[in-house]
């Protein structure tokens, strides 16, 4: 037993020495290749940070895209969840990561254009501090009512002429913003009751704890189909194909287009060739049948635009929302 151990130890020592000798040589090679061009990208597995918990829409989107994109890059794209502060924790980590394209993040739009309305300026994340690789998809919100409330349309709420309670998926979320805007435009006296994410909010509507709530389409759909909750309006810009028979808030006469959007983002300063290569890889992913099926199943609308276009969308949204919030004097922190 002892002798065998010693032999192992000796071989191990030899191996370590060999490795130490070999290392400087290796390093030199890598350096040479790096200075030639960027064609060596990617030279190892890619990390895709997700600022949300596993199992949610954002996490699933990341996983659905990571697999086919990785196949095109011929490297694994690993999804790593770093939940916290609606993705601000992951965004901070991304900002500190090496800008070589091996660390990416699945960025949620609300972090860029809704959270800044709720938190102090120094905590707000600015999307311009990052390199956008590609847009992914948009997730619409639908206003659903508990059967106990008896509401079938927004007009019913207005006509009811009473103070209502609305559930949100959290303070400073799209769910909160969409309803705050709607009810202040409709001059309905309404109290926001924030819950901790989509599922608890849905539970509250189902149980009639709140009158209405704004929930992402994919989450609300099974309950709508089963007739457990009533859809009133969607907050989409135009009717989503998945719920073509439900009017948008704009059609109902209220200026509240609120959507969740998702994009793949790299640290600032990532070389253009690398960003382009990644964009091609995700482009391949968008053609993947399984990825498309995922979008259909989760009722996500593809928004597979280039980085510049996405930046325009998101900074535009932030401006619009800021103006609307000021106009209707909505306090996004609290109510």
């Amino acid at each position, binding site marked *: 037993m002892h002798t065998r151990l010693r032999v192992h130890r000796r071989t191990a020592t030899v191996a370590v020495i060999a490795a130490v000798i070999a290392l400087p040589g290796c390093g030199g090679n890598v350096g040479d290749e790096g200075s030639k061009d960027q064609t060596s990208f990617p030279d190892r597995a890619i990390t895709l940070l997700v600022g949300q918990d596993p199992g949610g829409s954002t996490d699933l989107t990341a996983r659905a895209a990571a697999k086919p994109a990785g196949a095109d890059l011929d490297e694994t794209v690993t999804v790593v969840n770093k939940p916290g502060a609606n993705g601000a924790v992951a965004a901070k980590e991304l900002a500190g990561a090496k800008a070589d394209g091996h660390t990416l993040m699945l960025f949620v739009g609300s972090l860029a254009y809704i959270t800044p309305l709720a938190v102090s300026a120094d905590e707000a994340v600015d999307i311009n501090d990052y390199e956008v690789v590609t847009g992914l998809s948009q997730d619409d919100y639908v206003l659903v009512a508990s059967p106990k409330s008896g509401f079938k349309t927004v007009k019913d709420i207005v006509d009811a002429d009473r103070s209502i309670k609305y559930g949100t998926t959290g303070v400073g979320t799209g769910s909160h913003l969409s309803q705050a805007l709607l009810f202040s435009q409709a001059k309905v006296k309404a109290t926001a009751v924030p819950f901790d994410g989509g599922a*608890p909010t849905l539970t509250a509507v189902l149980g009639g704890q709140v009158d209405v709530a704004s929930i992402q389409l994919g989450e609300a759909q099974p309950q709508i189909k089963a007739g457990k909750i009533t859809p009133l309006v969607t907050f989409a810009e135009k009717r989503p194909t998945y719920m073509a028979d439900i009017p948008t808030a704009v059609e109902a006469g209220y200026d509240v287009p609120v959507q969740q959007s998702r994009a793949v983002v790299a640290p600032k300063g990532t070389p253009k060739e690398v960003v382009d290569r990644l964009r091609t890889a995700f482009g391949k992913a968008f053609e993947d049948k399984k990825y498309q099926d995922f979008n259909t199943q989760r009722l996500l609308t593809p928004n597979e635009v280039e980085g510049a276009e996405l930046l325009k969308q998101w900074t535009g949204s932030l401006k619009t929302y800021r103006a609307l919030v000021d106009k209707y004097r909505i306090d996004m922190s609290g109510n």
Partner: protein
Amino acid sequence: MSPVLDGFAVVVEPTNLLYCLVGVVIGMLVGVLPGLGPAATIAILLPITLGIEPVTAIIMLAGIFYGAQYGGTITSVLLRLPGEASSVVTVFDGHALARQGKAGTALGIAAIGSFVGGTLAIIALSVVAPLVAEFALDFGPPEYTMLALLGILLVATVSGGGMLKALIAAAVGLLLATVGRDGFTSAERFTFDSLSLADGLDFVPIAMGLFGLGEILYTLETRHRAAHSPTTVANVWPSRSDLRQSSGAIGRGGVIGFVLGILPGGGAVLASLAAYAVEKRRSRTPERFGHGAVEGIAAPETANNAAATSSFIPLLSLGLPANATMAVIFGALLIQGVTPGPQLVTENPELFWGVVNSMYIGNILLLIMSIPLVGLFVRILRVRPTILAPITVLITLIGAYTVNNSVFDIGLVVFFGVLGYLMKKLGFDPGPLVLAFVLGSLLESSLRRSLLLFEGDPGGFLTRPISGTLFVLFLAVALLPAARTVWRTRTADPRRSEESV
């Protein structure tokens, strides 16, 4: 009844049986590794499930979930390391028994209790799932407020040591629960401008630090001071009298666990706590609790396993994930192209019944595995502390890291480890702190939500039947000991006066 039987046909397919076994084995291992929870494990395994059939995948993932409940007990008993909030209560008596060299008894009782609790809950689930699912919806913020209040009250009564020290520890726990960005106003509270604290503290680093690391630091110190008497580990199985003593606890624990497990959010923690409190209250010798009472393990272990099983009810019959692990299983179903919702039972009966029925097999497999493993695991205690301690610390730190993939959490474990050491030195039990922490966030958010719903009128709690009933129960639990002492002194007084005459 035929879809139920078809479900069994699904389960006995060799692949499904194999994956069920794989699931429970992984689950048990995950449970044994402190910190590494089933939610993180299932998230890691998600890509693997893509290649297999939906039923098979969910059978395996469910196995991991309830298998982890079995495994979690082992570290709670042997190393005083609760892996999940629902096994904190097990530490009280489990570790005391291990100290007395009866680790085998503790683990044996826990395994039997877990098996009975799990199996009873599956039977109940099969029969009443659609009926009781709606019950979960009747629980709104006011009801959760009352449950959390009741839970915090129980925390103070169940723990060993002095009542005053327990209350101080619980108060610290409540205070820790307020750390983080306020969910109602986005105001920063005790975050010291750190993003890592924005979402508040997590249960795992606190429990790992206070229990695990704190205990290790403490034993290292005592070893230097006095000769550490080696723990004798007799591989004793629970005796007949142990089983007889705990049979009532197992039955009651199963019922409490099943009922509370249906509630999304905090069900399992409350269940284990309530089951323990009921046993302590019923016992004619409550002073044994905390010093190695077998009922003190049987009740919470049965309850948390029953709760783990019944927490599938909201997921499978309503499409609502009840906890973090359920959320990941929900995601796994979505990836498989199955949307969990109210129509799952009618649209995918083979999936519903396949998964439900696989739990019978899984529980039997776990019980069978437990028998040889208990003997194996208790030997951990024979390992010299100089070797065991560093390994435990390492595994704990890795486990804490995996929860949020955050280095900050490792720092938290160290911080709470030092705090745990100091608490132990000063005679504070970390149990009330940890439990109050878990219930504190539930209490605060539910209370504030309730007041929003009631437009600031606290009288609203009494206008709702369930929250009103819970409030009366709360008063009863709070005032009963006081009333009892008054009654006792009154009845005792005349006798004393007679004697004196």
